[in-house]
């Protein structure tokens, strides 16, 4: 756990502090995102946590221990640090770059080698191909990955990331974000993440700290901040599409109806077909393939004979459990559909 208590930083020659009386605590295993306009003190705050900068006043504790009481170099060795410009050593190979902190810890050669390979694989890079390259031979996205791998080399429990995906194009950034979130589920690190992009903050953060002019304006989960912005600044910062952004927090799994009907086409031919009483009824053919759906209204308005036709006329689309809700909704708009089917693997498990 990282705890900032009344931290202030006044740079020399500055009239207004870069960071002012900032207090917040970051729980173990959480991603806490610092977000705010340029110059609001995000980097300054982050860099105080690994003592790259010393606070003018206030204290910072990691797991209850004041960081000023430990040696700065060994403190930094135990904290992963990623910066936007990455800062790979241009005269060292990728493997050597990743091995920097393990070497500081004097790990044996064999252990370093296998760890480097493991990390490269984890970051989606081919070890054999990448190991002996130099940074100038990699693409921006690949360098970014190496930067993250290097910070994770000795498996530190805390990572500080200052706009780690800032230097790549939006497509690559999205991929890196997704991959990193997936990775975080396994590694469960305490992460302090700096960005000036509110969308990235909402996507990455378990908690978001919104800063402006060195002050903490609001601190909470993305949901809290989107639902209940503390003031006009936050509201403006989030933007007019607050509602849409909020939808992004949800996946199909959280919004779907789990009560639905499922009938075989063949049953319609029976005069007294046993039609389930549900808001939406999916229809499947003999091959157990879903072919369409019916709504409650269709049932009351149409005779049983025509139901098959009605069901088949509607375009049926499918989404997965972990599809973001806005994607599912736009699919519905596109197909002019009232419902889409939600699949868990191959199994039908709900409707929206």
């Amino acid at each position, binding site marked *: 756990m990282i705890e900032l208590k009344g931290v202030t930083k006044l740079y020399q020659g500055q009239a207004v502090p870069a960071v002012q009386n900032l207090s917040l605590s970051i729980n173990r295993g959480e991603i806490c995102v610092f977000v705010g306009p340029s110059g609001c003190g995000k980097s300054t705050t982050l860099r105080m946590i690994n003592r790259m900068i010393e606070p003018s006043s206030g204290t910072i504790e990691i797991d209850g221990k004041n960081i000023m009481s430990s040696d700065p170099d060994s403190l*930094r060795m135990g904290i992963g640090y990623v910066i936007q410009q990455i*800062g790979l*050593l*241009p*005269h*060292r190979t990728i493997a050597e770059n990743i091995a920097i902190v393990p070497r500081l810890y004097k790990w044996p050669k064999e252990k370093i080698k296998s760890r480097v390979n493991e990390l490269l694989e984890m970051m989606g890079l081919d070890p054999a191909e990448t190991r002996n390259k130099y*940074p*100038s031979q990699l693409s921006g996205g690949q360098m970014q990955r190496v930067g993250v791998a290097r910070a994770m080399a000795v498996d530190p429990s805390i990572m500080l990331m200052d706009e780690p995906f800032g230097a790549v194009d939006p497509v690559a950034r999205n991929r890196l974000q997704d991959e990193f979130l997936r990775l975080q589920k396994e590694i469960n690190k305490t992460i302090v993440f700096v960005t000036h992009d509110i969308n990235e903050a909402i996507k990455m953060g378990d908690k978001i700290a919104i800063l402006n002019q060195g002050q903490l304006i609001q601190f909470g989960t993305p949901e809290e901040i989107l639902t209940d912005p503390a003031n006009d600044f936050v509201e403006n910062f989030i933007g007019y599409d607050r509602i849409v952004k909020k939808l992004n927090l949800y996946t199909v799994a959280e919004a779907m109806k789990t009560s639905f009907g499922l009938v075989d086409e063949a049953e319609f031919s029976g005069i007294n077909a046993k039609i389930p009483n549900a808001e939406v009824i999916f229809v499947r053919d003999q091959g157990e393939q879903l072919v369409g759906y019916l709504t409650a209204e269709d049932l009351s308005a149409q005779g049983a004979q025509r139901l098959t036709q009605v069901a088949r006329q509607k375009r049926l689309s499918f989404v997965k459990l972990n599809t973001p809700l806005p994607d599912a909704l736009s699919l519905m708009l596109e197909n002019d559909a009232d419902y889409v089917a939600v699949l868990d693997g191959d199994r039908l498990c709900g409707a929206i």
Partner: protein
Amino acid sequence: MQFVNQNSTTIVEYTQNHFELVLTAVLISLLLWVPSGILLTKSDKWARRALAIANIIFCIPSLSLFAVFVTIPFLGLGRQSALLALVLYAMMPLMRNVYDGVKNVDRNVLEAAKGMGMSTGRIMREIRLPLGMPVIFAGFRITVVMTTGIAAIATYIGERNLGRFISEGLVRSNTNMIITGAILISVIAVGLDTFLGLVEKRVVPRGLRVRR
């Protein structure tokens, strides 16, 4: 050619003397100016002062500097004065380039290195020096070539080296003598520079040379 044949022993002697002077001067310069260039990165104030002094010395014409040292009692005519002057001239190209090379390393690389817990000494050895090597080496090459040239002028304060062919040749209007001296000095300068160019290839880290 005839001149060369007739005076081969003198030529060998002068060449030897010339090399000796240059090598000693370069060696002392390295021992002195490389560490001071590195030390200067610790204090901007001292760096400004030292570089200003180096600059002033560099601007004094070599003949004047040699002459001034001769008047100083315990230096006198000969080796000591010549060495001192050469070493002082080297201050500018050598110390300045070491300082620049070590100082102007990409800030982001330094930030990342420090942030990973590398100590200041380690950063100097493993990052600043290797990354500054191209600049440092450029300064070293200039120093060597320059020293070779200026050493010739030390003949006026009693050094018996290749410069003597030129000065005496001028006095006696002996064209062959002048040309021999001039060519030999140039060959040595170019030769040394080429040799150092080859050394540089081995010293500059590979990662700085690969391009995509």
